[in-house]
């Protein structure tokens, strides 16, 4: 319907004839709903999972930012800012008090209370790794009155505010108490928040289409919007997210005015949009994504530190990124595990990665370690554009260094399933896989899951690394940003020496919009508040 409207206005503008008349006739017959101002966006994937606590999928988090609000939010300087609540910390660092601002209501009309926030934080704390660390030292978290919650710790936890205000992967979204009381392992069934948009359940088509309407009772903050912080003013009536399996289709649709926005344009296809005067292409996410490889510490050959180091030496960021992205304007070599452009960035130990790899040194290490030709099982997804290329390029690089590589193609969901297997590679396990993170998901030692050294309790690959655990504890205890940065440097050096993972550099997506769209906030998470559309 709305597509028809757009097409109509375009045709009319160009003085179109019969077709426009016919479309006009068609739209005259339709109810007033079609008057609503709608932004139709093609997102990077289809929304399927609606519970932002149970999954870390980006599309689900983006959905959650539409319909839920957060207590605190990060601004463009990585600083926590009040969003739903202000906070105070006691001098001993043991008591945090959050006070909800006035005017907060859920989409069902109920006021947001401190009880709702407590229940939401509790559920989140069972799933989020940073949250788990906070709850490990929590004495009590309770609603002291309608609007106040008090969080009491048994020992100081310096980064508490930065964990609560993080924008990815699992930010603590505030839900009504009855929803938040769902077990943290069961997906929620009711989707009500207090955010600036309302989820239209009747029009939800999983994996294909999601519809949001403006929440008229949302009271935005007065501050200017800055990343996830500041006032969330909504200027359109509806936002529709659609998923298009084929990028060319999306680009053609944008060119024809059938849609308004593409969240991620495949860089190779930019020539298709750049020639169109009705389309604006911009790199709005300042930080981008980190692509990385992770080895399995449990099984040969990568249970041997020397062979992990050899693999790291064999890899070249330039080769990976040039193949994946192509246009150098949209990628950046970066040896920092915390990502370049973030406060903790440091590139110690990454020289070979950023200078084209060192296959000779890798071959030498292979010999020193007495590599016996155990094949490296490399899981290669075939159905996700941003994950297809890394394994193929890496396989060639590892072979050049002397590894025997068994590249196994499978769909991404099979990778996701199989990487959870602790069995030997020959029995359904694996040796390496690759994935991508948004920078905020790796920028901090407490958030970055690859730096978990707790063996089987940690993330896939399961390194048992007491040293990194000790360093993370030092980070929690560090009193000042300078001390934190100092610990972070040690973590960087240690992580690349142990090869906890291999950062393969950063890449960015251009976004494309029609020229009639303005006000999109340049943030890592695509948000639709502040966006205006001219008819």
């Amino acid at each position, binding site marked *: 319907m709305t597509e028809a409207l757009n097409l109509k206005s375009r045709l009319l503008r160009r003085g179109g004839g019969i077709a426009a008349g016919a479309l006009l006739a068609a739209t005259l017959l339709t109810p007033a709903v079609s008057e609503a101002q709608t932004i139709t966006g093609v997102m990077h994937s289809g929304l399927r*999972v609606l519970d932002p606590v149970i999954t870390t999928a980006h599309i*689900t988090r983006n959905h959650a930012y539409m319909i839920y609000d957060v207590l605190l939010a990060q601004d463009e300087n990585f600083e926590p800012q009040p969003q739903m609540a202000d906070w105070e910390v006691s001098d001993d660092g043991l008591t945090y008090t959050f006070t909800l601002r006035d005017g907060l209501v859920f989409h069902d009309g109920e006021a947001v209370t401190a009880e709702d926030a407590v229940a939401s934080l509790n559920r989140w704390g069972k799933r989020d790794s940073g949250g788990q660390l906070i709850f490990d030292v929590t004495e009590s978290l309770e609603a002291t009155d309608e609007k106040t919650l008090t969080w009491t710790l048994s020992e100081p936890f310096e980064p508490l505010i930065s964990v609560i205000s993080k924008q990815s992967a699992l930010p603590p979204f505030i839900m009504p108490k009855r929803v938040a009381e769902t077990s943290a392992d069961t997906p929620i069934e009711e989707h009500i928040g207090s955010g600036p948009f309302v989820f239209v359940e009747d029009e939800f088509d999983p994996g294909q289409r999601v519809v949001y309407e403006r929440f008229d009772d949302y009271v935005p903050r007065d501050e200017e919007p800055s990343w996830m912080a500041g006032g969330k003013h909504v200027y359109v009536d509806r936002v529709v997210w659609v998923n298009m399996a084929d990028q060319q*289709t999306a680009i053609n649709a944008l060119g024809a005015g059938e849609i308004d926005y593409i969240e991620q344009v495949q860089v190779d296809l930019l020539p298709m949009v750049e020639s169109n005067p009705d389309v604006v292409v911009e790199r709005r996410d300042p930080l981008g994504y980190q692509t990385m490889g992770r080895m399995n510490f449990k099984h040969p050959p990568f249970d041997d530190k020397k062979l992990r180091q050899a693999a790291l030496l064999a890899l070249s960021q330039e080769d990976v990124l040039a193949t994946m992205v192509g246009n150098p304007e949209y990628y950046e070599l970066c040896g920092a595990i915390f990502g370049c452009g973030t406060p903790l960035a440091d590139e110690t130990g990454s020289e070979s990665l950023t200078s084209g790899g060192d296959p000779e040194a890798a071959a030498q290490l292979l010999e020193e370690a007495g590599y016996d030709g155990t094949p490296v099982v490399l899981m290669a997804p075939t159905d996700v554009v941003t994950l297809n290329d890394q394994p193929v390029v890496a396989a060639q690089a590892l072979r050049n260094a002397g590894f025997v590589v068994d590249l196994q193609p499978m769909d991404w*969901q099979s990778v996701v*399933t199989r990487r959870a297997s602790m069995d030997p590679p020959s029995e359904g396990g694996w040796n390496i896989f690759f994935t991508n993170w948004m920078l905020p998901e790796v920028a901090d030692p407490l958030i970055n899951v690859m730096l978990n050294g707790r063996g089987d309790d940690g993330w896939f690959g399961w390194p048992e690394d007491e040293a990194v655990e000790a360093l993370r504890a030092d980070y929690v205890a560090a009193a000042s940003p300078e001390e934190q940065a100092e610990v972070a440097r040690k973590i960087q050096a240690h992580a690349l020496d142990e090869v906890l993972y291999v950062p393969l550099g950063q890449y960015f997506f251009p976004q494309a919009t029609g020229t009639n769209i303005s006000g999109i906030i340049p943030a890592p998470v695509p948000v639709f508040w502040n966006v205006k559309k001219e008819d």
Partner: protein
Amino acid sequence: MLGYIIRRILAILPVLLIVAVIVFLMLRLSPGDPAAILAGDAATPAQIDRIRTELGLNDPLHVQFITWMGQLLQGDLGTSLISRTDVWTMIERRIDPTINIALLTIFISVMLAVPMGVIAAWKHRTWADYLVMTFSVLGFSIPVFVIGYIFISIFSLQLRWLPVQGYTAPSEDLLGFFQRAILPALTLATIYIALIARMTRASMLEVLNEDYIRTARAKGVSERDVLFRHALRNAAVPIMTIIGIGFALLIGGVVVTESVFNIPGIGRLTVDAILARDYPVIQAMILLTAGIYVLVNLLIDLSYSLIDPRIRY
């Protein structure tokens, strides 16, 4: 006749039961894990296992199968493991585009292919015959998605006659429906036309050699009546059969065209569900398509006696 129909309908049940068993076993013995997909990138194996238990995926196989059968008997297709949406609702929202485009495809195919086949048989061994046959071999030899891309680049991008993607329901906007459905339907129709045109031609060729056609011609019946009244009627049974058999091809093609033209139909729903190991959705969709296939072929078998009075059951 009635007894035959009842017997045929009863025979559908074991077929669907076997389909159900095949699909169920295939899915449960496969290595995929919907819980891992649900949990996303940062989950640990322990968290994934807890979700498995919550979803009932850690129950013994026979328990899961009996639970599913029990649900089915109550007309409940279950809930998507991934989106927690009712499977019926998901199918309801997606089935309209697929059915409408499939009907349009069948209509276009029959309207084009039957005359093509008749003409090819009538003008046997002339350029018209060779043209039709060349087309019908080509229709079998080019992958569906390539045909789709070629149509898009000609009609949507070069000539700018039609929108590039999407779907509009005919109930909302009939013109919009045709504008968006015509390319996917033509794409799907290519292989179908090839199939039906060849069948029509082969079947007509046999009939045209029969004595009664010669008699009809000798009696001075007009050529058009000979072809369409006498010959086509007698050649109709194999043509109907091939339409039924081709229905399976159509369902296969739908999966691809829905991706190329971005149509929110059940083909894409099924493939997405397979890739996400969303068991209840895959099971429901495969049962549904199998059921439709069996029913369509039953209806076609029954229609034989209407077309050809010599056939009795």
